[in-house]
């Protein structure tokens, strides 16, 4: 695997910045190719994948729980006056649930996950790189890419959809609580309105794209950590740039995936 070198210095020229952009795009492509090449080659490191899934899930569980509830709660609070103004308050439960299911739940979970996990993976692998732990694996005939990268990327890809479903559920509950406070809404009515408004074509693409977002979080964090150099400064840089890059790529892919899902499941 030949990854293009990134110029790591202060006060880069515009040409160097442009070079770094293309080097990053190429590097990420090479890294992704290597991931898919090694994905099906044994050993499969199942224990490591389970360990990472548990750790990453536990790490993000509290923050996504709070965020999930608040998304639904605030969305309904903000939307309620608007719906009343247009005489459409009956549609509020269904409309807010649809927003959460189709877009807000997956994208916000992915961005929080990127902030928490991509930076963590970047820092962890970056630290292993600069302290020669990755080299130590390599010279001991252990495949560090398989052990460190493939296992983490599989874990992030598998855990994000689970977290997203959990966030969607909490957001819908949050929306209900907001309506109970403002209107004293009946749970049965709310539940029926939500179920009636959500279709198969709403749920499947939104969950499907979280697999892609999970993959992006894992691969970007791993890439940035794996190529880190320059001591502790390099580790810090790997951590921060991993978050920025992962978030940006998630938003770009979201745009494309929304377009594709609308083409496959038109409203």
């Amino acid at each position, binding site marked *: 695997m030949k990854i293009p070198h990134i110029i790591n210095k202060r006060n880069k020229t515009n040409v160097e910045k442009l070079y770094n952009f293309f080097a990053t795009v190429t590097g990420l492509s090479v890294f992704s190719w290597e991931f898919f090449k090694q994905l099906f080659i044994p050993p499969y490191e199942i224990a490591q994948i389970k360990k990472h899934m548990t750790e990453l899930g536990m790490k993000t569980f509290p923050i996504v729980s709070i965020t999930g509830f608040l998304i639904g709660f605030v969305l309904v609070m903000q939307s309620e006056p608007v719906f009343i103004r247009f005489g459409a308050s009956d549609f509020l439960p269904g409309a807010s649930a649809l927003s959460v299911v189709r877009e807000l739940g997956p994208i916000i979970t992915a961005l929080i996950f990127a902030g928490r996990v991509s930076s963590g993976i970047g820092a962890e692998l970056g630290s292993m790189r600069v302290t020669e*732990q990755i080299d130590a694996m390599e010279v001991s005939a252990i495949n560090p890419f398989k052990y460190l990268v493939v296992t983490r990327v599989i874990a992030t890809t598998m855990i994000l959809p689970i977290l997203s479903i959990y966030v969607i559920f909490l957001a819908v509950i949050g929306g209900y609580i907001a309506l109970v406070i403002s209107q004293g809404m009946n749970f049965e009515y709310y539940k029926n309105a939500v179920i009636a408004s959500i279709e198969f074509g709403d749920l499947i693409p939104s969950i499907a794209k979280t697999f892609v977002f999970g993959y992006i979080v894992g691969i970007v964090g791993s890439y940035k950590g794996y190529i880190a150099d320059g001591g502790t400064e390099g580790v810090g840089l790997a951590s921060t740039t991993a978050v920025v890059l992962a978030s940006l790529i998630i938003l770009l892919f979201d745009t494309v995936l929304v377009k594709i899902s609308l083409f496959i499941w038109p409203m």
Partner: protein
Amino acid sequence: MANVNIIQIENLSKAFGDLVILDNISLDVKAGENLVVFGRSGTGKSVLLKCIIGLLKPDNGNIYIKEQNIIDLNLKELNKIRKHTSFLFQGAALYDSMTVRENLAFHLTRNVEINADEVEKKILDTLDLVSLKEAVDKMPSELSGGMKKRIGLARSIITDPEVIFYDEPTTGLDPISSKEISELIRDLQKELNMTSIIVTHDLICANIISDRAIFLRDGKIAYKGTLDELKTSKDKFLIDFFSKDLIN
């Protein structure tokens, strides 16, 4: 076995951009020999080790380990060679997220066919060799610099390698710890009959370990011989190097 070349390097060159680090180096290392590599900082000592173990790809030249040219090998074939070698990094490179036991078991179980009971026994026996049996459940962050080096050494020898590469094994240690580690390396080498290439600046370490030494300068092997021959050389550069080292 003693006179068989276990490592042969032919016309090895390595540059980073315009900066030539190694320039047409040729070198033989015999089985069971301890070769010390001297040189000032930045003269390519570590680069030489990393080329030999396949961490860096040379620009030119051939490197034979046990008569196989590692330049021609794919990763799978190279890893077969690596199972017979070991590398002690300057900072020991212990895995932060694993205990000492897990650090040792990680290398052992992946390179040697061995059952769980034997793994535990081998770990404890190896830790006993470096006098750190009591550290078996400690995390690397709980160890001192000298202890890390010892554990790193234990991890390096647990697979019974034929060749060990040491990158500055005593750097950062006080003179007493440095002497202890050096004696440990020498004793292990004698006991286990391993071949060693040791990159160091430390004359105390070299005095204890070396059978033969080379001195890298301007990308070439400028001097070679026994340590005594180098130390008693009339060459001004060597006189300066060794006298400064002794003063320090």
